[in-house]
């Protein structure tokens, strides 16, 4: 890894801040490129209560971000594609 501005300021990991505590345990990896349509919900491993609540509001069917339904895909060249659709906000 090249030198970063942090290195230049002599900052150390010991100065650890609080963030991303809410993200602890979440997958740090992009979707598996071997699938055409991917399930999985960051809320399953994350700590955001509202995400979990959102899922339960939809009966646990599929992945959601707040009021939005999430559909994950992988393009032919392996790049991730995520489609967000509005379940609750109206005619968006």
């Amino acid at each position, binding site marked *: 890894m090249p030198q970063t501005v*942090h*290195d230049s300021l002599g900052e150390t990991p010991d*100065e650890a*801040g*609080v963030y991303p505590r809410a993200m602890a345990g979440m997958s740090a990896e992009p979707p598996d490129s071997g699938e055409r349509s991917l399930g999985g919900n960051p809320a399953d491993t994350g700590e955001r209560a509202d995400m979990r609540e959102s899922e339960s509001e939809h009966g646990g069917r599929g992945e959601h971000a707040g009021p*939005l339904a999430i559909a994950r895909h992988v393009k032919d060249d392996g790049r991730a*594609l995520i489609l967000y659709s*509005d379940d609750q906000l*109206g005619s968006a």
Partner: protein
Amino acid sequence: MSELRFEELRGEEVTYAIHRQDRTFLPSRDHCPLDPTRPGGPQTEIPFPAFEIAVFDNRFPAFETPGGAAEVVVYTDDHDASFAALAPERAEALMWVWRHRYMELGAREDVDYVYIFENRGVEVGVTLHHPHGQIYGYPFLPPVPRAELAADGRLGGCAPCELLRRELADASRVLFENDGVVVYLPYAARWAYEAHVVMRSHRASLLECEPEELRLLAVALQMLTRGYDALFDRPFPYVMAVHQAPTVSPSRPGAAAAGQGHLHVEFYPPLRTAEKLKYLAGSEQGAGAFISDTLPEESAAKLREAIARAG
């Protein structure tokens, strides 16, 4: 894969993404890669005949795993729309998409700063006209958020909170406000019509916002951008920059910056009149010192009128 080099004189990273030299540049309307893929039509980035909001890995990324991320956020399948022209529900949905991308990208070890932005107009270098924004997941903390965090130290606490207090007390540059958001031209605006959209309550990121605050943020962003378009009665070019807390993981250098910040959205419009652009020239580039031809208070008055006209 891009290469980072540290420019010692300025103390800044420079990213070399030479594969971007060949990226798609202002294609014809019939070959827009951000359109949906219609039956019988050319294959696009989104292989579906319709969609609401789409996010995908940039084909020409400035950053990519394990050295960051670069995503494209397509606001709508309507090629001729704009952020300002989106249905209010779609703009609100976009806030949730931003929030979700911040959460996912910020969780990655190789992403120290999630930067959501939109370049609008050829004046700021846009290469695709279809309404869209981008997200960079920087593998380092960029200079601007670093400078904003340094301001916290100078002002003895959250700088945006203090500056918001000052702007509300002065009121001469406030464009409008709602229960969740205040929009103003800053006291020391660099661009003639620079505007800051600031969460009224201290929120480090979109993750800390209540659903109603996300809605109010979307309302404010659309009011401002509609006002921009009304100002000179033309599509108004701008850079829209969403500033949030860094997401440096505890194991990374600079982790102390993580979680520090105050969600706000800054707009940098290059127009100083209907036909004249502000260029970053000798003083701005060589000395880092902005010279402005306009006073923020006068610009604020004009922009307030435009916002009122736009409804």
